């Protein structure tokens, strides 16, 4: 049974002794817990925050085991049900416990609370903290999400940092030993380096390589992480650009971004308004990106790669220093809508292109011109005059699909004209 467990569960630390790294967070947390036991703590709740895979949830579980506490846990997917919160409120408000052990209340992923669909969720948690007779622990990737401002205000903030590389290697070696797998130290280092302090992803990588090849070498590690990198790189690059404190950091972030500039600019384009709040900052950042984009265009047209330096400076420092004051905040960077929309509208665009193809040669013009100058008027004809539309469809050999594209909800009428046999030759 346990053979099939994902390693991130199988090797989750049972106790604090097994828990690696995060010394500072550990100390602060224990001090806070001691306050609780002694009577009244300064803050009734703590908010553990930090990037994914830095051990927030694992820490809470290990702590509960080490201190022999009953753990009452809830995560983002439960918040919607008021009954769950109510149950937890009852637990928190009562001093007694069946086993006679102390209790620990743990609310994971509170930044996943949706202000719309989980309406009242934040209030319910505030209420819970208010009445609780037991320590309340919350965890979030982004402590500065506006959704949870009021939770932040009543909590002691404890930061979980990205793990040190040596700590990741240490954790990985221990797993290799227990699994009896031969692991090259250099391979583990490579996995650790690429994980950038995310132990969960490092363990997942380790398992993927070990299960596929029965051993871990530097080469195997490189091959796998190169594959992962493609999806991972933009997030990291964005975080580093927007949060750069000094010019050199923003420049580094661009030059070591590991993705091509044309992709990176689309990611930045997507996230300028995610990161900046004021219209002035948004406008300045876009102006910098826009100038960078102009340089990239000139490079392609003229072949002057000398210009790349300017493009990079505007794309990195230019965008980063559009802010009026340094904020340094966590923002959830998501996959650009543009890529998603492009794939969703692909079918329609293909049809449009095939119409353009059918007409361009006859109208002696480019497909691009047909798309922008002819198709809009065809749409007017197809939606308002089904007879003329049917005639045009016949003349230019438009398919049913194309007619539907042009006529929208009038397609039925056009098609019914089209299906009658043609009488007579061309007009």
């Amino acid at each position, binding site marked *: 049974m346990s053979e099939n467990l994902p390693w991130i569960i199988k090797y989750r630390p049972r106790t604090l002794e097994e828990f690696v790294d995060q010394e500072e967070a550990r100390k602060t947390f224990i001090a806070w817990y001691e306050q609780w036991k002694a009577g009244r703590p300064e803050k009734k709740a703590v908010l553990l925050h930090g990037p994914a895979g830095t051990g927030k949830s694992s820490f809470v579980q290990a702590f509960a085991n080490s201190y022999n506490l009953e753990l009452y846990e809830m995560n983002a997917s439960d918040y919607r049900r008021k009954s769950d919160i109510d149950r937890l409120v009852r637990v928190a408000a009562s001093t007694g416990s069946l086993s006679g052990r102390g209790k620990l209340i743990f609310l994971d992923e509170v930044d996943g609370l949706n202000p719309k669909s989980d309406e009242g969720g934040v209030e319910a948690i505030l209420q819970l903290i208010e009445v609780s007779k037991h320590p309340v622990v919350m965890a979030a990737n982004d402590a500065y999400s506006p959704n949870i401002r009021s939770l932040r205000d009543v909590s002691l903030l404890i930061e979980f940092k990205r793990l040190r590389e040596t700590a990741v290697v240490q954790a990985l070696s221990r797993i290799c030993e227990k699994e009896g797998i031969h692991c090259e130290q250099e391979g583990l280092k490579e996995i650790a380096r690429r994980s950038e302090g995310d132990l969960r992803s490092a363990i997942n990588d380790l398992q993927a390589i070990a299960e596929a090849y029965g051993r871990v070498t530097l080469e195997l590690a490189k091959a796998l992480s190169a594959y992962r990198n493609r999806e991972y790189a933009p997030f990291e690059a964005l975080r580093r650009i927007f949060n750069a404190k000094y010019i050199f950091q923003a420049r580094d972030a661009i030059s070591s971004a590991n993705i091509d500039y044309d992709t990176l600019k689309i990611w930045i384009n997507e996230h300028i308004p995610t990161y900046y709040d004021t219209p002035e900052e948004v406008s300045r950042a876009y102006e910098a990106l826009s100038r960078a984009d*102009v340089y990239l265009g000139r490079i392609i047209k003229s072949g002057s790669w000398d210009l790349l330096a300017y493009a990079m400076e505007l794309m990195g420092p230019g965008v980063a220093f559009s802010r009026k004051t340094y904020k340094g905040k966590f923002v959830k960077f998501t996959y650009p809508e543009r890529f998603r929309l492009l794939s969703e509208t692909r079918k329609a665009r293909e049809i449009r292109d095939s119409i353009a193809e059918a007409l361009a040669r006859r109208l002696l013009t480019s*497909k691009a011109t047909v798309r922008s100058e002819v198709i809009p008027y065809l749409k007017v004809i197809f939606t308002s005059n089904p007879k003329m539309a049917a005639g045009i469809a016949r003349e230019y050999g438009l398919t049913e699909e194309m007619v539907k594209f042009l006529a929208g909800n009038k397609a039925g009428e056009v098609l019914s004209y089209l299906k009658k046999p043609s009488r007579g030759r061309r007009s």
Partner: protein
Amino acid sequence: MSEQPFLLWAEKYRPRTLDEVVNQKEIVARLKKFVEEKNMPHLLFAGPPGTGKTTLAHCLAHDLYGDNYRQYMLELNASDERGIDVIRSKVKEFARTRVAGDVPFKIILLDEADNMTADAQQALRRLMELYTATTRFILAANYPSKIIEPIQSRCAVFRFTPLSKEDVVGRLKYIAEKENVKYSEDALETIYDLSEGDMRKAINILQAASALGEVTVETVYKVVGLAHPREVRQMLQLALNGNFTEARSKLRDLMLNYGLSGLDIIKQIHREIFSSDLKLPDEARILIADLAGEIQFRLVEGADDEIQLNAFLARLAFMGRKFKPT
């Protein structure tokens, strides 16, 4: 009976021979000389869209080779076939064979040539030299300044001027009468105003308006309104109200669902800026026009449509606080 094949008027009423061309008189006269002599240099046709560059190239070829002229002419469009490799292989294949007949060369028409990169133009210049014995190039371009100097100097340059109001209205009247379409004079003049001297566009508007019934000023405006989505104005309004995020989603809608290019959109924005439906102080209109011009220039230089228009909208959202529409 209308389910019979029905030609688009832009195709049906295109002149087939140089004699049928009613405008660009000086150019037509010079082209007729080439037909007489059965010889011509490389040509560069420069001028705004819809002024007859491509049509005249076809008329010239028709007059040189007769009705089957298209077998003696290779048509390439640089906006559709940007890669020089495609162009090179097609040109090579086409130019290899000699022509039988009394015209000793074939024609390669390279339309929208200003969309070629500088590298591709350099390569094209070599092709022009290489195959000069068997082929003549006709390049058509909106912006001759974007054609590199060595190509310009190898071509006889013809500058096409925007069509006059009389030419456009006269042609529209001719078509309307042939097609038994009811129309008002005002309506045809309105079409001219809206089409900015672009004959192809004028004819498209006329045909679409006739699809609605009688061609009146109202139907013309209706057609143009339908063809140019209202989203452009809504997008501007959102941006000016400081709502950048929604303005940006409108922009995406225009690009992906309406299939408009960045240039299409910025040109429509330009039309909207001075419309009285957009409530703005006049000094704001001028600032926005200047900004729109800059963005259009950047787009023509090859920048990314969405990034440039986002920059424009973000600036509007910032400016809009000063010029809060009342």
